[in-house]
Protein backbone atom coordinates (compact mmCIF):
# COMPACT_ATOMS: atom_id res chain seq x y z
CA UNK A 1 0.00 0.00 0.00
CA UNK A 2 1.54 3.26 -1.04
CA UNK A 3 1.23 5.83 1.75
CA UNK A 4 -0.13 9.30 1.09
CA UNK A 5 3.29 10.89 1.65
CA UNK A 6 4.70 9.23 -1.43
CA UNK A 7 2.09 10.83 -3.65
CA UNK A 8 2.67 14.20 -2.04
CA UNK A 9 6.42 13.99 -2.50
CA UNK A 10 5.97 13.00 -6.14
CA UNK A 11 3.65 15.92 -6.63
CA UNK A 12 6.16 18.25 -4.95
CA UNK A 13 8.92 17.08 -7.26
CA UNK A 14 6.76 17.65 -10.32
CA UNK A 15 5.78 21.11 -9.09
CA UNK A 16 9.41 21.98 -8.56
CA UNK A 17 10.29 20.78 -12.05
CA UNK A 18 7.57 23.00 -13.44
CA UNK A 19 8.82 25.99 -11.48
CA UNK A 20 12.37 25.41 -12.63
CA UNK A 21 11.11 25.19 -16.18
CA UNK A 22 9.47 28.59 -16.00
CA UNK A 23 12.74 30.16 -14.87
CA UNK A 24 15.16 28.20 -16.95
CA UNK A 25 13.61 28.06 -20.38
CA UNK A 26 13.89 30.77 -23.00
CA UNK A 27 11.01 29.74 -25.18
CA UNK A 28 7.51 31.06 -24.54
CA UNK A 29 5.83 27.81 -25.46
CA UNK A 30 8.02 25.75 -23.16
CA UNK A 31 7.26 28.20 -20.36
CA UNK A 32 3.56 27.54 -20.90
CA UNK A 33 4.27 23.80 -20.86
CA UNK A 34 6.02 24.19 -17.51
CA UNK A 35 2.95 25.94 -16.14
CA UNK A 36 0.92 22.93 -17.27
CA UNK A 37 3.31 20.66 -15.38
CA UNK A 38 2.69 22.69 -12.24
CA UNK A 39 -1.06 22.49 -12.66
CA UNK A 40 -0.86 18.74 -13.07
CA UNK A 41 1.22 18.36 -9.94
CA UNK A 42 -1.46 20.22 -8.03
CA UNK A 43 -4.12 17.97 -9.56
CA UNK A 44 -2.27 14.95 -8.26
CA UNK A 45 -2.22 16.40 -4.75
CA UNK A 46 -5.94 17.07 -4.87
CA UNK A 47 -6.82 13.58 -6.01
CA UNK A 48 -4.49 12.00 -3.44
CA UNK A 49 -6.04 13.95 -0.60
CA UNK A 50 -9.51 13.36 -1.90
CA UNK A 51 -8.87 9.66 -1.77
CA UNK A 52 -7.26 9.84 1.67
CA UNK A 53 -10.18 11.77 3.14
CA UNK A 54 -12.71 9.65 1.31
CA UNK A 55 -14.60 12.47 -0.36
CA UNK A 56 -15.37 13.23 -3.99
CA UNK A 57 -14.41 16.88 -3.58
CA UNK A 58 -10.83 16.24 -4.62
CA UNK A 59 -11.91 14.94 -8.00
CA UNK A 60 -14.39 17.77 -8.48
CA UNK A 61 -11.76 20.40 -7.86
CA UNK A 62 -9.51 18.62 -10.35
CA UNK A 63 -12.32 18.89 -12.87
CA UNK A 64 -12.40 22.66 -12.38
CA UNK A 65 -8.61 22.97 -12.47
CA UNK A 66 -8.55 21.15 -15.81
CA UNK A 67 -11.18 23.47 -17.21
CA UNK A 68 -9.31 26.56 -16.10
CA UNK A 69 -6.05 25.13 -17.43
CA UNK A 70 -7.64 24.56 -20.82
CA UNK A 71 -8.95 28.12 -20.96
CA UNK A 72 -5.61 29.50 -19.85
CA UNK A 73 -3.68 27.43 -22.38
CA UNK A 74 -5.93 28.63 -25.20
CA UNK A 75 -5.61 32.31 -24.34
CA UNK A 76 -1.89 31.97 -23.56
CA UNK A 77 -1.19 30.39 -26.93
CA UNK A 78 -3.23 33.05 -28.71
CA UNK A 79 -1.08 35.67 -27.03
CA UNK A 80 2.07 33.80 -28.07
CA UNK A 81 0.86 33.76 -31.66
CA UNK A 82 0.12 37.48 -31.57
CA UNK A 83 3.55 38.19 -30.06
CA UNK A 84 5.28 36.01 -32.63
CA UNK A 85 3.66 37.95 -35.43
CA UNK A 86 5.22 41.14 -34.11
CA UNK A 87 8.76 40.10 -33.33
CA UNK A 88 9.24 36.80 -35.17
CA UNK A 89 10.77 35.34 -32.05
CA UNK A 90 9.65 33.17 -29.18
CA UNK A 91 12.41 34.25 -26.86
CA UNK A 92 11.02 36.25 -23.93
CA UNK A 93 14.12 38.41 -24.05
CA UNK A 94 12.94 39.88 -27.36
CA UNK A 95 10.03 41.55 -25.61
CA UNK A 96 11.91 43.85 -23.26
CA UNK A 97 11.19 47.24 -24.85
CA UNK A 98 9.22 48.40 -21.78
CA UNK A 99 12.17 47.81 -19.47
CA UNK A 100 14.02 50.88 -18.30
Amino acid at each position, binding site marked *: *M*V*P*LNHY*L*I*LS*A*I*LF*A*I*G*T*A*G*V*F*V*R*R*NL*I*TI*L*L*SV*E*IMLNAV*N*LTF*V*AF*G*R*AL*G*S*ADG*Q*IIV*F*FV*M*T*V*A*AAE*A*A*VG*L*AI*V*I*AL*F*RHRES*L*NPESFVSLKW
Partner: protein
Amino acid sequence: MASETVAFYLFGAIAIAASLLVIAQRNPIYSVLLLIASFGALSGLYVLLDAPFVAVTQIIVYAGAIMVLFLFVVMLLNAPHEDTEYDERVHPLMRPGPMRFGAALALLLVAELWWALGRGGDSGGFPAGAVASVGAIGRSLFTDYGFAFEVTSILILVAMVGAVVLARREERR
Protein backbone atom coordinates in the same frame (compact mmCIF):
# COMPACT_ATOMS: atom_id res chain seq x y z
CA MET B 1 -0.24 -5.14 -2.78
CA ALA B 2 3.17 -5.30 -4.31
CA SER B 3 1.92 -4.75 -7.83
CA GLU B 4 0.44 -1.44 -6.74
CA THR B 5 3.76 -0.28 -5.33
CA VAL B 6 5.56 -1.31 -8.50
CA ALA B 7 2.98 0.51 -10.60
CA PHE B 8 3.31 3.64 -8.46
CA TYR B 9 7.08 3.73 -8.80
CA LEU B 10 6.92 3.00 -12.50
CA PHE B 11 4.40 5.74 -13.26
CA GLY B 12 6.13 8.13 -10.89
CA ALA B 13 9.48 7.54 -12.55
CA ILE B 14 7.99 8.06 -16.01
CA ALA B 15 6.27 11.26 -14.93
CA ILE B 16 9.41 12.71 -13.36
CA ALA B 17 11.71 11.65 -16.18
CA ALA B 18 9.36 12.98 -18.85
CA SER B 19 8.89 16.30 -17.04
CA LEU B 20 12.64 16.71 -16.58
CA LEU B 21 13.17 16.07 -20.27
CA VAL B 22 10.45 18.58 -21.13
CA ILE B 23 12.39 21.35 -19.49
CA ALA B 24 15.83 20.05 -20.33
CA GLN B 25 15.81 19.40 -24.03
CA ARG B 26 15.58 21.89 -26.81
CA ASN B 27 13.23 20.81 -29.55
CA PRO B 28 9.78 22.18 -28.70
CA ILE B 29 7.95 19.36 -30.47
CA TYR B 30 9.76 16.78 -28.40
CA SER B 31 8.85 18.81 -25.32
CA VAL B 32 5.17 18.60 -26.18
CA LEU B 33 5.34 14.86 -26.86
CA LEU B 34 7.24 14.20 -23.65
CA LEU B 35 4.65 16.16 -21.72
CA ILE B 36 1.98 13.94 -23.24
CA ALA B 37 3.92 10.94 -21.95
CA SER B 38 4.04 12.57 -18.52
CA PHE B 39 0.29 13.11 -18.60
CA GLY B 40 -0.20 9.48 -19.49
CA ALA B 41 1.84 8.46 -16.44
CA LEU B 42 -0.20 10.80 -14.24
CA SER B 43 -3.36 9.25 -15.63
CA GLY B 44 -2.04 5.87 -14.51
CA LEU B 45 -1.47 7.31 -11.04
CA TYR B 46 -5.05 8.54 -10.92
CA VAL B 47 -6.23 5.03 -11.71
CA LEU B 48 -4.12 3.78 -8.80
CA LEU B 49 -5.86 6.36 -6.62
CA ASP B 50 -9.27 4.89 -7.51
CA ALA B 51 -10.23 7.88 -9.64
CA PRO B 52 -10.99 6.40 -13.08
CA PHE B 53 -13.11 9.33 -14.17
CA VAL B 54 -10.34 11.84 -13.51
CA ALA B 55 -7.86 9.53 -15.23
CA VAL B 56 -9.87 9.31 -18.41
CA THR B 57 -10.75 13.02 -18.32
CA GLN B 58 -7.04 13.77 -18.03
CA ILE B 59 -6.40 11.87 -21.26
CA ILE B 60 -9.38 13.36 -23.07
CA VAL B 61 -8.87 16.99 -21.99
CA TYR B 62 -5.16 17.38 -21.32
CA ALA B 63 -3.43 14.86 -23.54
CA GLY B 64 -6.09 14.84 -26.21
CA ALA B 65 -7.10 18.47 -26.56
CA ILE B 66 -4.77 20.91 -24.83
CA MET B 67 -1.64 19.21 -26.08
CA VAL B 68 -3.02 19.05 -29.62
CA LEU B 69 -3.49 22.80 -29.35
CA PHE B 70 0.13 23.22 -28.23
CA LEU B 71 1.32 20.97 -31.04
CA PHE B 72 -0.62 22.93 -33.64
CA VAL B 73 0.83 26.23 -32.40
CA VAL B 74 4.36 24.84 -32.40
CA MET B 75 3.91 23.54 -35.93
CA LEU B 76 2.22 26.64 -37.30
CA LEU B 77 4.79 28.98 -35.83
CA ASN B 78 7.53 26.61 -36.93
CA ALA B 79 8.96 27.21 -33.49
CA PRO B 80 12.68 27.34 -33.80
CA HIS B 81 15.01 25.55 -31.50
CA GLU B 82 15.89 27.79 -28.66
CA ASP B 83 18.67 30.10 -29.70
CA THR B 84 20.57 31.99 -27.11
CA GLU B 85 23.58 34.16 -27.07
CA TYR B 86 25.36 31.62 -24.97
CA ASP B 87 27.48 28.90 -26.34
CA GLU B 88 25.15 26.24 -27.71
CA ARG B 89 27.07 23.53 -26.00
CA VAL B 90 26.48 24.82 -22.51
CA HIS B 91 23.47 23.06 -21.10
CA PRO B 92 20.61 25.29 -19.90
CA LEU B 93 21.01 24.20 -16.31
CA MET B 94 24.64 25.32 -16.19
CA ARG B 95 24.19 28.81 -17.49
CA PRO B 96 24.61 31.81 -15.22
CA GLY B 97 21.92 34.20 -14.27
CA PRO B 98 18.23 33.45 -13.76
CA MET B 99 18.73 29.91 -14.92
CA ARG B 100 20.92 28.94 -12.04
CA PHE B 101 18.51 30.74 -9.76
CA GLY B 102 15.64 28.75 -11.16
CA ALA B 103 17.42 25.44 -10.80
CA ALA B 104 18.52 26.28 -7.27
CA LEU B 105 15.01 27.33 -6.34
CA ALA B 106 13.63 24.08 -7.60
CA LEU B 107 16.13 22.03 -5.64
CA LEU B 108 15.42 24.05 -2.51
CA LEU B 109 11.72 23.50 -2.99
CA VAL B 110 12.11 19.75 -3.31
CA ALA B 111 14.42 19.53 -0.30
CA GLU B 112 12.08 21.58 1.87
CA LEU B 113 8.98 19.65 0.90
CA TRP B 114 10.71 16.33 1.37
CA TRP B 115 11.81 17.34 4.84
CA ALA B 116 8.41 18.71 5.78
CA LEU B 117 6.53 15.71 4.52
CA GLY B 118 8.97 13.27 6.03
CA ARG B 119 8.57 14.88 9.41
CA GLY B 120 4.83 14.47 9.40
CA GLY B 121 5.11 10.92 10.59
CA ASP B 122 3.44 8.02 8.99
CA SER B 123 0.30 9.36 7.40
CA GLY B 124 -0.89 5.84 6.92
CA GLY B 125 -2.37 4.34 3.87
CA PHE B 126 -5.69 5.18 2.33
CA PRO B 127 -8.92 4.18 4.02
CA ALA B 128 -10.46 1.18 2.43
CA GLY B 129 -13.75 1.73 0.73
CA ALA B 130 -15.32 5.21 0.52
CA VAL B 131 -14.50 5.49 -3.17
CA ALA B 132 -16.51 8.10 -5.00
CA SER B 133 -18.29 6.70 -8.00
CA VAL B 134 -18.81 8.65 -11.19
CA GLY B 135 -22.46 9.06 -10.34
CA ALA B 136 -21.63 10.58 -6.97
CA ILE B 137 -19.19 12.99 -8.61
CA GLY B 138 -21.82 14.01 -11.11
CA ARG B 139 -24.47 14.56 -8.50
CA SER B 140 -22.15 16.62 -6.34
CA LEU B 141 -20.92 18.60 -9.33
CA PHE B 142 -24.38 19.63 -10.44
CA THR B 143 -25.87 20.34 -7.02
CA ASP B 144 -23.26 21.51 -4.52
CA TYR B 145 -20.92 22.97 -7.11
CA GLY B 146 -23.52 23.96 -9.64
CA PHE B 147 -22.67 27.65 -9.57
CA ALA B 148 -18.97 27.00 -10.12
CA PHE B 149 -19.87 24.70 -12.99
CA GLU B 150 -21.90 27.37 -14.75
CA VAL B 151 -19.18 29.95 -14.15
CA THR B 152 -16.56 27.70 -15.75
CA SER B 153 -18.74 27.30 -18.80
CA ILE B 154 -18.85 31.09 -19.17
CA LEU B 155 -15.10 31.12 -18.57
CA ILE B 156 -14.57 28.76 -21.48
CA LEU B 157 -16.79 30.92 -23.68
CA VAL B 158 -14.76 33.99 -22.77
CA ALA B 159 -11.52 32.12 -23.43
CA MET B 160 -12.76 30.99 -26.84
CA VAL B 161 -13.74 34.49 -27.88
CA GLY B 162 -10.52 35.91 -26.47
CA ALA B 163 -8.34 33.39 -28.27
CA VAL B 164 -10.05 34.05 -31.59
CA VAL B 165 -9.74 37.81 -31.20
CA LEU B 166 -6.12 37.75 -30.04
CA ALA B 167 -4.88 35.47 -32.76
CA ARG B 168 -6.69 37.15 -35.59
CA ARG B 169 -4.67 38.84 -38.26
CA GLU B 170 -5.07 42.57 -38.38
CA GLU B 171 -7.56 43.69 -40.99
CA ARG B 172 -6.00 45.30 -44.02
CA ARG B 173 -7.48 48.72 -44.37
